[in-house]
């Protein structure tokens, strides 16, 4: 139970007396807080992405011997050069959009990110990436702690979650984040019309303004109700946005399109959360085509559309996207032509200000090699994921990463900006 989440209510209640005037007032705050108007879009690949089929060591014979049916043929990978250790690498053939961004020098591929004694449990590992503490699976999330550093009173849309549930990374002590999974139903419905409906909405807003002394769990729901009503109008603005490119169909493309709308309309959100699932590929994952190929296609096409759109709008330099997953997968394929839970994985960072290229080194997949762990079953981490978080906080969001991450992880951080 995340009791701490409820604390932010106190803060929010202070603005409640503004009633229906609140949205414009809060927009002014949003505007003031959004200079410079940089935003961070966090993309979570749920289930544990098979990094070795995302960024492929296509000249490593062990890659082919250990993955007899799911290895991507060397001739099909999208080559991106060689890393500092001289290992040739290529992107999955369905990541053509990402290769474009790579070729423009705006996609950083940070290899072998993780932490010591990587958890193989989805839930524990996701919690660790969220808290940014391998020793703690509970407590606030790293993005939540960043939001808590923003000046108060904070705008209700300082962060924007496109998933239905609040991800652990965004949980905080002081800041509630609206969840807008489906912008078209992010509206207020009434059994009545006209003035009766309007009066009902006023009553609902007043009811949700109750601080509910002595009942913090009720106050928490009230604060969520109130944030919903207060954000309705600005969300409608963002979703009315007409993009400059066609986004792929499906939830991921739709979410990115909504994010682009919010960025272009200047809503002022600093952090966006987007997630897409299906990466728990225990069985029949395929190689170039098949289930994993479809996952890569959706990922690459979606990110390419988004990047092109914000670039067309002149906002690429204000936007950074990171892509992560809770773990990589086993090196050897299993009996189901899939892969089981593994360890280190690849993080991606892209945007107009990103220093692209291959960061860190890839693993040699030959059994016994020191870049491996778990009896050579898994890829051993090289870059602590918190070093990447630190760079994003310090150099992109202009925050101080040390208190947010409860430690100094700047050493060893990849030079992605």
């Amino acid at each position, binding site marked *: 139970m995340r009791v701490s989440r409820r604390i932010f209510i106190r803060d929010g209640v202070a603005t409640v007396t503004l009633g229906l005037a609140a949205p414009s007032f809060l927009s002014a705050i949003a505007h003031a807080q959004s200079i410079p108007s940089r935003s961070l879009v966090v993309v979570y690949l749920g*289930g544990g992405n098979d990094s070795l089929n995302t960024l492929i060591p296509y000249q490593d014979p062990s890659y082919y011997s250990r993955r007899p049916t799911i290895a991507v043929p060397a001739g099909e990978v999208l080559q991106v050069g060689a890393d500092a250790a001289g290992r040739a690498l290529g992107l999955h053939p369905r990541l053509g959009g990402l290769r474009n961004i790579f070729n423009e020098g705006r996609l950083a591929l940070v290899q072998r990110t993780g932490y010591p004694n990587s958890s193989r449990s989805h839930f524990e590992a996701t919690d660790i990436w969220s808290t940014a503490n391998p020793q703690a699976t509970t407590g606030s999330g790293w993005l939540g702690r960043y939001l808590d550093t923003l000046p108060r009173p904070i705008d209700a849309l300082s962060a924007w979650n496109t998933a239905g549930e609040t991800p652990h990374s965004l949980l905080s002590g002081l800041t509630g984040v609206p969840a807008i999974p489906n912008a078209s139903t992010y509206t207020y419905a009434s*059994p009545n019309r006209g003035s*009766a409906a309007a009066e009902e909405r006023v009553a609902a807003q007043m009811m949700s303004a109750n601080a509910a002394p002595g009942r913090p769990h*009720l106050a928490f729901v009230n604060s969520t109700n109130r*944030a*919903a009503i207060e954000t309705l109008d600005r969300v409608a603005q963002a979703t009315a946005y007409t993009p400059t490119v066609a986004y792929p169909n499906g939830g991921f493309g739709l979410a990115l399109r909504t994010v682009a709308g919010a960025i272009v309309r200047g809503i002022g959100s600093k952090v966006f959360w987007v997630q897409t699932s299906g990466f*728990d590929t*225990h069985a029949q994952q395929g190689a170039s085509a098949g289930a994993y190929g479809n996952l890569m296609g959706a990922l690459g096409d979606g990110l390419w559309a988004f990047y092109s759109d914000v670039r067309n709008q002149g906002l690429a330099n204000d936007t950074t996207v990171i892509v992560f997953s809770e773990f990589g997968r086993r090196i050897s394929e299993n*009996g189901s032509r899939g892969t089981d839970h593994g360890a280190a994985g690849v993080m991606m960072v892209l945007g107009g200000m990103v220093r692209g290229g291959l960061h860190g080194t890839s693993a040699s997949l030959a059994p016994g090699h020191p870049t491996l762990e778990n009896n050579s079953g898994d890829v051993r981490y090289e870059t602590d994921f918190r070093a990447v978080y630190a760079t994003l906080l310090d150099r992109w969001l202009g925050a101080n990463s040390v208190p947010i991450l409860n430690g100094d992880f700047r050493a060893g951080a990849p030079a992605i900006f």
Partner: protein
Amino acid sequence: MSQLDPSIDHLLRRAAFGASPADVETFRNMSAGSVISYLVDYEGRPDDADARIGRPDHAQVATKDLFSPDTDIDDARQRWLFRMIHTRRPLQEKMALFWHNHFATAYSKLAGDSGAVQATKMLAQKPGVLRGPQGQIELFRQYALGNYRNLLLQVARDPAMIVWLDGKTNTRTKPQENFGREVMELFTVGVGNYTESDVYAAARVFTGWNLRRSTEYRSDDPNAYQEFVFNAEEHDTQEKTFSFPIYSNGSRTIPARSESEGMQDGVDLITALALHPETGRRLARKFWNFFISEIHTPDPGFVENIATVYRQNSTEIAPVIQAVLTSPWFTNTAMRYARYSWPVEFVVRSVKEVGWQGFSLDRARAPLANMGMLLYEPPNVGGWVLGANWFSTGTLLARTNFAATLTASQRAGLTDAVLDQSRTPQALLTAMLEKLTPAPFDQGPQQAMLSYLVAGGSWTGSEAQLNTRVPGLARLLVGSSEYQLV
């Protein structure tokens, strides 16, 4: 003030899905003890809700052509909601819902593997409607208050679970860890009580637990099915050693066995896991959150009590639930409204309390998805993220907007129900609070509702005023934060 004693209301919100006006009549003169017996000892009452689908005085279902709840997942969703609303055995459906979250299995992966018809059958087929085994939810209904060790065994052989956790490809040469891990992490002892090498050993234990396709039907015949088979030749016959005892003599090693006897490995492991002391405690903590409170951490005394009942009754669940519902923690009035309703609980309770005349349950489908809880589609094997996590702005708007849809559809019934109590706004509000049983309102929200009633002009109680303001008030109540607590 409620129409029932508050302790009975509390019982019915937790161990059932709230009370319809007819339920209020049934339970009006019963003691808490007899209500508990009524809920737990449900075998004596008929399991006949399905036979009442289509009756005009019940909630409605809507479908493309023929209502096919055994082969069409959207129809299966409506049937389950219908059962929750109209069952004479509410605790059975409540526990089936609990097990659905506990053994969370999602339709979409099954449909990708086996097609829509087979996937629906695997999850929802009522026994005997078509050829092949009963669906997973029917298993949960059968074992709702049954023996947990036996339920685990059935789940391990359940076709939906085998597809879901990739058992079909768990072979001797390449053991597949998915089920082996989750049976310990999620279904029994929990993280911290097993090792990574236990996961590997458990995967080997279940090698050969597989499915067989029926041969007598074409694959597109709805009667085609998959059923459990033990492929002895795919079983790893070597011994498997665990970090915890498998046998009552303390031995941690499942002995090497011949192929033909190899299925006993899984029976031994499941029995050991069901009897493991941490399993009883883990279930006790989940029952605490489901029946007692989500805002108070599980009381250690409760956990030990319930784990003991579980062990002493050889993993039978009925005495465990009986003990939960009669425990001092359950009856403690501080625990009332100390739980966040699941979206399905919210929908079913609101339909029971607001009314269902002419209301099609298909209208709850998209709202439930937006609330974050589509039946048969949990987000992953860990189940839904419960408690405060149900509530984000988007999911709460989905709840309040469902309240608008439902109350708009029940305009006449709602107005009729309070006609005699509508002389003043205060009388009307009191009547609606009794009908809808939300958590108590503080002064501020009460005042906001009273202001709403007279916002269009002074109160006359005219038919036009009631027709507008009664559904509007019901919408405010069902959409209120107070109503989301149970």
